[in-house]
């Protein structure tokens, strides 16, 4: 099972998310650019995804809403910048629950032996914003070895019976 690597560098307002996908990059690119396909994978399974707008072109807008079973809705929107090729997809990103905190993400798809490495580089307006979005604990856990922290926590925190 491939693992999702999330790197949170100390002192820089970035997050890097890297994941290998067992498919050629044209297919992975379709999964990112076709709104019907996107709705089938982006977000947790327990949320229902509605892609309202996904205008994949330079200057095109996007918006999607993720609904919880109890009716709670989380909206996100932004704009695409540039031609949105497998080599480089750039978009702005804003969580509507946190207006004015806009991040910028760049996705690069690299194919090797029929598999694709999806590399997402996210730039936040400040380190505080980054930490607010991903949790300042990510800077601790991921940067210095998330697995080590997991192991430590597993030892420290007995599983509730």
């Amino acid at each position, binding site marked *: 099972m*491939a*693992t*999702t690597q*999330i790197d949170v560098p100390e002192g820089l307002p970035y997050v890097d*998310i890297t*994941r290998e*996908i*067992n*498919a*050629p990059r*044209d*297919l*992975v690119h*379709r*999964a990112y650019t076709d709104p019907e*396909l996107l709705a*089938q*994978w*982006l*977000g*947790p*399974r327990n949320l229902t995804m509605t892609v309202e707008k996904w205008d994949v072109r330079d200057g095109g807008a996007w918006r999607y809403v993720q609904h919880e079973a109890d009716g709670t809705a989380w909206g996100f929107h932004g704009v695409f910048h540039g031609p949105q090729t497998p080599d480089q997809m750039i978009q702005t990103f804003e969580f509507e629950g946190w207006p004015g905190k806009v991040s910028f993400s760049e996705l690069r798809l690299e194919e090797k032996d029929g598999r694709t490495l*999806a590399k997402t580089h996210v730039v936040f307006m400040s380190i505080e914003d980054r930490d607010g*979005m*991903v*949790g*300042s*604990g*990510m*800077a*601790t*856990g*991921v940067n*210095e070895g*998330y697995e080590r*922290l997991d192991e*430590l*926590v597993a*030892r*420290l*925190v*007995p599983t509730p019976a």
Partner: protein
Amino acid sequence: MTPDQLDSVFSALADPTRRAILARLTEGDANVAELAAPFSVSQPAISRHLKVLEQAGLISRHRRATARLSHLEADPLREATDWLAKYQAYWDESYERLDELVARLKSIHPQPARPTTDR
């Protein structure tokens, strides 16, 4: 747990010495000298680390006879890790769903169409 409390838990955990102290305290309560023993730092430095951990609610301190012992408080740690796991979980789950999607797409289109201009 409030965002401020989470901040203090995470910043307390950001230091390898403090994590090692917590790991040691899983084995039982200990005094400053016992906690300092594995490290090449002074007891006052360890005391400062203990103060940070105490303020974050990760340890409590109590006296037994003349010794001042530190005790691990696990609850804030559980809450903090539950919370920080969300961003990781969001992407883990999204990419698992993407794996399933591309597997379905590949079975429908075993030979992905290429633009004719490439040939």
